[in-house]
């Protein structure tokens, strides 16, 4: 019974993943801080969690897939197949002590799906970013031998993506364990170029490896209240890399060197607590990434262990629709994320406040989750850059009752 369903769905999953991949592979961000390491870390939260400060380690998946914790899949409604597609757009204002500049950026971020296979097993598959790189910085460089300068542009694109497949097992009535098997891949492309002199010096690092991350969710019911504890863990791992450096001028492209080196992603440990009653839920997260032992060959920055703290809550708009399919959710939350980088010994921590809503789509089980994010990263101290941004997350949560139909056949 299970296999035909999986087969039937797998074609769709694959086509969705591939169509998403094409766009996502070109994903980018827009931040000068993405020049370091593997870029800006994207975080695993999606959908409703985006409106709650990215909080979700202890939340069980329900009408949306919670990709932060693989153990959460067991909460997926037994009758639903859920697709999630997310888009993020951002307006950033960058400030230094001397100057202020701005940029906009919008990208498709993730495509994933989740469904319950049987009462004890639920799965999710998807495509998500791990990190992204996007910058275009124009620097004045001297033309040696003259008193002139020219504009040399440093640009970066790429990032690390993941295709994952995960499963959640309900071991006990209140205890779920989950695992995601992910294939991490992508490229880190950095370029130095000049429009005036028509050259580009390009360094592309392709990265790839498998990654596993694990999760646990334990639920305690006391009267009408449910209390959840979530734990997530992933080991440190090396990414396999292949690096190619080329130079391109009007006379052609020449490969200068090809080599491999180790690129590491740190051990990650997170815990969260959530409370819920009826359609209300709230939670807090704590996450720690052990970047300290991971070294990059850049003299401008050091790594350190970084923590993330967040909180968030969700409640339905009061009124007659509460408890029906037309219920509207409101969400809010906040997050503080320590940077894993110290640039010139200065931390470039970031904080955000979020406001979100979940809107049902008329006549369907589908919903749109919208979240506004007001954030700040970095500081103007020591000649550094502060980024203030307003972001908007749009998440389409497409739900269908495939399996119930199947049962009626």
């Amino acid at each position, binding site marked *: 019974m299970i296999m035909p369903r999986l087969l039937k769905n797998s074609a769709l999953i694959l086509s969705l993943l591939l169509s998403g991949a094409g766009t996502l592979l070109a994903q980018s961000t827009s931040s*000068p801080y993405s*020049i*370091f390491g593997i870029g800006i870390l994207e975080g695993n939260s999606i959908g409703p969690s985006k409106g709650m400060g990215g909080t979700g380690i202890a939340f069980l998946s329900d009408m949306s897939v919670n990709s932060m914790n693989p153990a959460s899949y067991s909460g997926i409604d037994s009758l639903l197949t859920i697709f999630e597609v997310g888009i993020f*757009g951002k*307006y950033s204002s960058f400030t*230094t002590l001397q100057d202020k*500049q*701005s*940029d*906009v950026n*919008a990208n498709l971020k993730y495509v994933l799906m989740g469904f319950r296979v049987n009462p004890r097993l639920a799965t999710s598959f998807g495509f998500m970013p791990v990190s992204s790189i996007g*910058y*275009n*910085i*124009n*620097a*004045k*460089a001297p*033309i*040696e*031998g*003259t008193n002139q300068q*020219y*504009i*040399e542009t*440093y640009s970066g694109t790429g990032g690390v993506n993941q295709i994952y497949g995960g499963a959640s097992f309900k071991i006990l009535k209140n205890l779920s364990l989950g695992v995601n098997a992910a294939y991490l891949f992508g490229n880190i492309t950095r370029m*130095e170029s*000049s*429009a005036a*002199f*028509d*050259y580009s*010096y390009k*360094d592309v690092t392709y990265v790839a490896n498998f990654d596993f991350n694990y999760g646990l969710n334990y639920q305690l019911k006391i009267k009408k209240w449910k209390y959840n504890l979530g734990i997530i863990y992933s080991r440190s791992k090396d990414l396999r890399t292949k690096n190619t450096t080329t*130079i391109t*001028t*009007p*006379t052609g492209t020449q490969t*200068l060197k090809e080599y491999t080196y180790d690129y590491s992603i740190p051990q990650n440990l997170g815990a969260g607590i959530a409370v819920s009653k009826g359609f209300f839920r709230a939670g807090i997260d704590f996450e720690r990434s052990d970047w300290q032992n991971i070294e990059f060959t850049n003299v*401008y920055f050091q790594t350190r262990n970084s923590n993330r703290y967040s909180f968030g809550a969700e409640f339905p*708009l009061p*009124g*007659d*629709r509460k408890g*029906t*399919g*037309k219920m509207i959710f409101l969400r809010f939350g906040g997050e503080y994320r320590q940077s894993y980088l110290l*640039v010139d010994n200065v931390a470039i921590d970031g904080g955000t406040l979020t406001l979100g*809503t979940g*809107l049902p789509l*008329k*006549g*369907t*089980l589908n919903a749109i989750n*919208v979240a506004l994010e007001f954030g700040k990263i970095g500081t103007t101290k020591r000649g550094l*850059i502060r980024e203030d941004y*307003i972001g*908007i997350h749009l998440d389409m949560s497409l739900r269908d009752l495939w399996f*119930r*139909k199947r049962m009626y056949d």
Partner: protein
Amino acid sequence: MKGNGEGKEGKQIFSFTSVFLLIPIIFVTGLIFISSCTKKYEFNMGQDFFDSQTRLQVIDTFSVNLSTVLLDSLKTSSTKIALAGNYRDDIFGSVNVGAYFDLGYQDFEDIEDKAIYDSAAFSLRYNGYSYGDTTSLLKLDIHMLTENIEPYSGYLYNTSSFDYSPEVIGSVSFYPAPESVDTAVYLPVNALGEDLFNKIRDNDENLSNSELFSDYLKGFIITSGSPDNKSVIGFTADDDNLKLIIYYHQDAEEPELKEITISMGQENHQFNSVKFDHTNTPLNDIRTEGNVMPSTRTDNYGFLQGMVGLIPKLQFPTLQEILAVQRWKILKAELVLEPVYESYDLFRLPENLYIYDTDRENRVNTILLDDKGNPLTATLAQDDIYEEEVRYTYDITKFINDELSDAYFDYDHGLMPGLADDDFTSSLDRLLIECKYPPIKLRIYFLTY
């Protein structure tokens, strides 16, 4: 199944509340994306985080050897320009230009017996070109050829000549107004006109066919009529503009003025011959030195002049030193020529300079092309007020990269800055460049990494 639970109430609530929530979101988003952003090419924050892997430098210390080549001959036929006059100065020496042409045969109409000859003149129309000092009086003579103009394989050259009678059959002295394009100068040839008039009236057998006609009128040369001339002037040479006009009238109570027009003959029979003399100029010995002289023996000058056939040659003796450096690219190579200061007061600087490649035999080979396949031109940068920094700049990146691509630079493979082909064969345009100061620069934008 999808529509379950949908009702009147649901519809209302969705539209109200959702719209209520969506409006501010759309508004805020719209505001964000519409508001102006820093242009992509202006964004510069974060530049301190980079260590450039590349280094761009300009090297302009490569030596450039300059010499002047005198070309054997230049095709000057079929240029549609007749040039005549002479000019001399102490740098380029003297030039004396004569315009050869013949007249076309026509079936002459009968003239009434009572027709009376008045006068005849060659009509010469300015084509706009002049060389030298046009404020001085110019005297031009015309002679009859004693042999027919015969092109060699279809062409005639600046060095070609045909015998002509020493007798001057017509002469005109005038202050040239070359800017009055299409205005005519009349060169009277009354005796010739009368002879021709009589022959036409008498149906002379010399006019009965083209062979006899060209035997009778073999051709003409307009020569400089005085050693005191100070200019060479250009006239349009085609069958509409270069012609002999015979004026006559009817012997009647109210005389009717009439004319007979005889146009220039074959296009490739029209050419300009150039006699030049470099005595007592820096190029004094160029003939005896095999038609090439290094700038070290010509006061550090390089000479370019159309119709005479002077062309500078540039060679790059130290360029191969660049091959000793590791990991480099030439992003741009510019060749900068500066005209000798005050050498172009009387003579306009050529607006467009082209460049040709040359070889050990000093041949003018192919013209260098730009990226789009058009002839590569040098841009003239000129400061009209101070006359400083007047210079021509060629972008010869492709030439230099091509030459170095086989890791060997051939010293014999040089460049010749020149005029457009048309100007080189139909004008005396000139340019004096200096090798010592200001020097000729090969400016290379050199990227190492």
